[in-house]
């Protein structure tokens, strides 16, 4: 029971102090879970992060579930998930409550126009980083281009774009099998 509570508190801290989305949480998760609590080793941490990226959903949530389960079983997974989510939930509800009032202030509107411009720059830098990490061969940039055409031109729902990626991966797998069969 003490362990479950400790999991909750640790992930509460992680949820409360990481800004900028899931990937920004990873260094803090590492510091708390690997260095301070010594719940998992550095090697399994790298493992956990790559597994959590192959599941749908937020990376931070997924890695919290995996770590929670390893340390405290199902109750541990639930405790870690609650801990990592609760701070966002409380803060966002507070922000949403006051947002409609402060939105009337002209200075706030101006600040938000500047912030939105900054967010574009942030998103561009994220897409450069993720693009560099994901597009390493000759076929993957082609998949990105087809997905962009589907998104902007054909205007299909993003769910089908994700399914297109999964289908490309499966097709690639069978293509590789066939090729290695011939050799």
């Amino acid at each position, binding site marked *: 029971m003490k362990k479950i509570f400790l999991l909750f508190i640790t992930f509460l801290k992680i*949820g409360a102090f*990481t*800004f*900028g*989305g899931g990937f920004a949480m990873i260094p803090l998760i590492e510091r708390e879970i690997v260095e301070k609590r010594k719940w998992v080793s550095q090697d399994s941490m790298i493992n956990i992060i790559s*597994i959590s*990226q192959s*599941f*749908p*959903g*937020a990376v931070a949530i*997924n890695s919290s*579930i995996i770590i929670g*389960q390893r340390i405290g079983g199902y109750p541990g997974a*639930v405790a870690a998930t609650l801990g990592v*989510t609760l*701070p*966002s*939930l409380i*803060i*966002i*509800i507070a*922000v*949403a409550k006051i947002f409609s009032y402060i939105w009337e202030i002209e200075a706030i509107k*101006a*600040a*938000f*126009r*500047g*912030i*939105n*411009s*900054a*967010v*574009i*720059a*942030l*998103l*561009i830098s*994220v*897409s450069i980083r*993720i693009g560099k990490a994901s*597009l390493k061969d000759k076929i*993957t940039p082609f*998949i990105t281009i087809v997905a*962009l055409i*589907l*998104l*902007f031109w054909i*205007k299909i*729902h*993003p769910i089908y*774009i*994700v399914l297109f*990626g*999964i*289908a490309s*991966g*499966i097709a690639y*797998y069978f293509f590789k099998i066939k090729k290695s069969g011939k050799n």
Partner: protein
Amino acid sequence: MIYLQLFITFFKIGLFSFGGGYGMIPMIEIETGQWLTTQEFVNIISISEMTPGPIAVNTATFVGYRVGGILGGVIATTGVILPSLILILSVCGLLNKYRKHPLLESIVWGIRPVVVALIIGAVALVARNTLLKEPISINDMLDLSSLQHLEPISIAITVLILVLLLVLKLHPILAILVGAVLGVILKYVGLF
């Protein structure tokens, strides 16, 4: 039944989004279009960048609260997390075992370039709603006639902050702060 609708919408978002929060943005925009204007959604993206926690959770809470109060916020957030919780707890052991299986590796190989496209979609969404005078949905991105309404000052802020991020490795939170301060200053010198 608004709560059920919120739950189903965010469950769907949680189930079909890969590559973390940024890749989820185009999907969230289309799925929540009935409850939020595009401009409001762009503001929520910005708020998510300024508050702790994953962007998917932040958006779910914000939309849920707007639509159905505190209970709505809790329900939407539960909906977005639940697919991860169910999937991971049921198949994580298997996945750990077959992680190196070539089929799984190929699927991840296929999803990653698609996530890049979805993040570019997110860039386009925020850009067309900030750098233009008229807000616009992701489905109307290719309508080039809106380009005549470009806002040079907003573009200049984006370019400046992008340079700071890429060259000086500015921390994302500081980038947001620089944007906010520039916005207020430009307002008071009458340029914005």
